[in-house]
C-alpha cells in the first residue's frame, strides 16, 4: 500500500439542459488500496468541507454486480483495468501525480442527468419488449422435467451475466446497444424455455433499440473489449441469426 496524489479533471453538469464543463481538483494522500469510488467519496468530502456541491455519480452495490456505476475514465469505459466495473477499479491502477479525466457515458441513448450520472431507462424499455419468457407465476413443470446440456446452460449463463451498465454503448463509436441486446437474446435462446419465443423476442428488442436512437453495429468489437463482464460478440452473431430467422418467417 502507498499513498499517491492525483489531479482530477471531472465533468460537471448541473442538469440535462446545462452545457457542462470540466472542473479540476487536487486530491492528496489517496491510498492505493482504496477503490476508485472510495477516492471519489474522499473528493466529495473535501468538496463539501470547502462549501461546494459534491460530484453526483451512480453507484450502489460497489462490488461489480448491480451495473449502476458508470464512469468514463481517461478515455475508457470503467477505466484502465480490464474486466472490472468502475467500483472494482482500484487506485493502484494509477500513479503518483497522474491527471485523471472522468466523464459520464456519452451517448445519445443515455442523456446526462447530472455530473457523471446518466439516464439508462432505454435499456429497461428494450427489455420490456421481450427480455423474458412469457409465463405467469405458477403452473410450470418440475425444474428437472427438461434436461439441458451443461454446455448450453453454461453458455446461457455467460450471456446472462450482463449487468446492464451501458459501457458497450458508451464505448461504441456508433452508440450501438447490440452487445447488451444480444446478451439477453442469447441467454434465452440457448435454453429450451426461452427458445419458444426466440425469433419474436429478437425482432421486438431490435426494433425498440432502433426506435430509441441507438446506432447500428458495424462490428468494431470495441464493446467486447470494454465490457466488464466479458460478454462475447459471438452473442451478436447469434442475435443476427435469430433476427434473420424472424424476418424470414414474417
Amino acid at each position: 500500500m502507498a499513498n499517491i496524489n492525483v489531479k482530477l479533471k471531472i465533468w460537471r453538469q448541473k442538469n440535462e439542459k446545462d452545457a457542462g464543463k470540466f472542473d479540476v481538483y487536487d486530491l492528496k494522500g489517496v491510498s492505493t488500496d482504496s477503490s476508485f469510488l472510495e477516492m471519489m467519496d474522499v473528493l466529495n468530502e473535501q468538496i463539501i468541507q470547502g462549501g461546494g456541491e459534491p460530484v453526483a455519480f451512480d453507484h450502489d452495490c460497489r462490488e461489480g454486480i448491480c451495473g449502476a456505476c458508470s464512469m468514463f475514465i481517461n478515455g475508457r469505459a470503467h477505466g484502465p483495468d480490464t474486466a472490472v466495473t468502475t467500483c472494482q477499479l482500484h487506485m493502484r491502477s494509477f500513479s503518483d501525480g497522474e491527471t485523471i479525466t472522468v466523464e459520464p457515458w456519452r451517448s445519445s441513448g443515455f442523456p446526462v442527468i447530472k455530473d457523471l450520472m446518466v439516464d439508462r431507462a432505454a435499456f429497461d424499455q428494450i427489455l420490456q419488449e421481450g427480455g423474458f419468457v412469457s409465463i405467469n407465476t405458477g403452473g410450470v413443470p418440475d425444474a428437472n422435467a427438461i434436461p439441458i446440456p451443461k454446455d448450453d446452460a453454461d453458455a446461457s449463463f455467460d450471456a446472462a451475466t450482463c449487468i446492464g451498465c451501458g459501457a458497450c454503448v458508451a464505448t461504441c463509436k456508433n452508440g450501438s446497444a447490440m452487445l447488451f441486446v444480444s446478451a439477453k437474446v442469447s441467454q434465452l435462446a440457448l435454453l429450451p424455455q426461452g427458445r419458444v419465443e426466440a425469433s419474436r423476442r429478437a425482432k421486438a428488442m431490435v426494433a425498440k433499440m432502433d426506435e430509441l436512437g441507438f446506432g447500428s453495429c458495424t462490428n468494431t468489437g470495441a464493446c467486447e473489449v470494454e465490457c466488464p463482464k466479458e460478454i462475447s460478440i459471438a452473442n451478436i452473431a447469434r442475435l443476427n441469426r435469430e433476427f434473420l430467422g424472424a424476418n424470414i418467417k414474417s
Partner: protein
Amino acid sequence: MVLDAKIPKGPLAEKWSKYKASQNLVNPANKRKLDIIVVGTGLAGASAAASFGELGFNVKAFCYQDSPRRAHSIAAQGGINAAKNYPNDGDTVYRLFYDTIKGGDYRSREANVYRLAEVSNSIIDQCVAQGVPFAREYGGLLDNRSFGGALVSRTFYARGQTGQQLLLGAYGALNRQIKAGKVKMYTRSEMMDVVLVDGRARGIVTRNMVTGAVESHFGHAVVLATGGYGNVFFLSTNAMGSNVSAAWKAYKRGALFANPCYVQIHPTCIPVHGEFQSKLTLMSESLRNDGRIWVPKKKEDAAAIREGRLKGSEIKEDDRDYYLERRYPAFGNLVPRDVASRAAKERCDAGFGVGKTGLAVFLDFKDSINRLGEDAIRARYGNLFQMYEKITDHNPYKTPMMIYPAIHYTMGGIWVDYELQTTIKGLFAAGEANFSDHGANRLGASALMQGLADGYFVLPYTIQNYLADQINVPRIPTDHPAFKQAEEDVKAFINRLKSVNGKQSVDHFHKILGHYVWDFIGMARDKQGLESVIGKIRALKAEFWKDVRIPGEVKGLNTELEKANRVADFFELAELMAHDALEREESCGGHFRTEFQTPEGEAKRDDANFMYVAAWEYKGDNQTPQVHKEPLNYEYIEVKARNYK
C-alpha cells in the same frame, strides 16, 4: 395491544392448503378496480408486483435505483434453498423446516417457516421456467451444493451470482407486466411516508430523486419490500443505498417493528482495510464447502504474520488451528453463521488473528485444490476469487484468503402476521423488510427463498383475502387531506434537514454511528454497554440536527439530501436496536449477551422467559418505545439447545 398472528388452525402440514381453500378471493372484473402499491422491486417486490399484475390488479411499483434490475438482491452470491431432494440425500419439506427453525435458534413461528419450506420447490420450478440458468450436471439436470446449518445439499446456484440470476428472472416477469400495462414502474423514487385514511394504508408519498418533486400515490393496499437495515452499521455488505427509511416511516405511523436486535454478522467477508472504506465485500458462504478456516496455533506465528515477517502459506500443517473443525466436528466449517462469526472473533480477541489489523482469519483452499484441481475450484468460485483478487491484490489460488465477520443481513423487521400484513390494515411487508421466518439467525441461501416465496406464492393469495372486501372502495384522490398533510410533513422534514446548514457531511455522522452500533450492538453485547450507547446515539443525533451540512438545492437531484434522510432514520433505529437488545436478557442466534453464555462460550437461551417475538411500538421522538410480546408456541418441534458438535 394483543398481537394476533392469525395462524390457521389444523395440523402444521395442512395449514397453508386449508388457508388457501377457505380464503376470500377477488373475481377478475373486480381485480381491475383495485390498485396495489409495491415499494421496492428487489426479489420480494419484483416477484410480488409481477404476480399481482398477472392476476389482473393494477400495480404501481417503486424503487430508488434507476432500474429494478439493480436492487440489492442482485448481489446475492451463493444460492437458494429448496427441499427438492434431487440428490437423494434425505431432504424433505419437514427437514428444511426443521433446519430453518433450529438455525433461527427457536425464535421463529412454526407455521410461517413450514409454509416457506412447503413452497420452496415451486420457486425453483418457477425460476427454471423463466430461463434462470442454474448450474447443471453433465446429465443436464440441476446441481446442488451445501450451505451452513444443513446436513444435506439443497442449495441451487448459478455460479457465484445466484441473486443476480433470480432477480433478472423476476425483473423479466416485471418487465412483461410493465409492457402489458398492468404495472407502472417508478424508478429513482424514494418513499417518504405511508398515508393512512381511516386507519388503513391507502397510499404513499414519494420524492422524485431527479426533480425533487414530492408526490402522492393511492393504492387500495400497500406492500413494503424495501429490504434490510444493515447499513445502520455504516460498513456492511449491503448496497450503499440500502436503508430502513420506508420501514421506519411505517413504524412511526403505527406498524410494530419486531426483533430489531436480531442482525446477522456474516463470518466470511473481506476484512476492513482503512478508514476511507465505504463498504464491505462478502465472500460467499458457499466457499466454506471447499475452504478450511484456520488461524495459527502459536501466538508468535500470528504476530509474525501480522508484521509481514511470515506468510500464511508458510505455516506448517501441525501449527494450524482449524478451530471450527476442532470445536464443531459434526458440522465443521459449515456451522451456522452466528457460530462461525463468534468463533472468529474469539480467536482474534485471544491474539491469534492475522492480517495487518489482527482482525482476520484464513480461509484456505489448498486442500481442495490439491484434491480437485485448480480448474474445478475455478468453475465453482471463479468470480469470487477474481473479486477477492481485485480488492486485495492477493491471489487466493496461491495464498489463503483472509476473512473477518461483517454485518450482512437483518432478521428483524416490520412485524407481520401469517398473511404478511402489518399491524396497520392494508399494509403488508415482504422479503428482508419483514421479521418473519428466520428467528434469531438466518441460514444461508434462505433469504432468496423467503423473498421469492413471499412475492410469488404467499402475497398473491393473502392480499386477496384483504382486498376481497375492498372492491367497493373507490380510488381516493390524492388531493384528499390525508395525502396533502403527509406531503406537507415530508416537505417540512426535507426543509428542516436542509436548513440545519452546519459544517459536517452526512457520512461523518453515519461513520460515528456505525462505530457505536458495531461496538455495542454488534457481535457481543452487555447491559452496561447497551445502556450507555443509547445516550451516545441520542447525543450524536442531536449533533447531526445541529451541524449537518447538505449542499445544493432541495429541488433537483441531491445525493447528500438522500443520504441525510436515511441517516436521520438510522439514528432512531439504532436506539431501538439497543432497547431490544437490552430487553432480551438471554443469548440467541445473532444476539449474544456476554452475561448469558455457557462455560464453552456458546449462546445460552432462556426459553422460559424469552420465547417470544418482541414487537415495538413507536411512542414519540426520544421516548422509550413500548414492547409487545407475541409468544412462540412449538407444537411440532422439540425445543433443544442448538448443537452443531
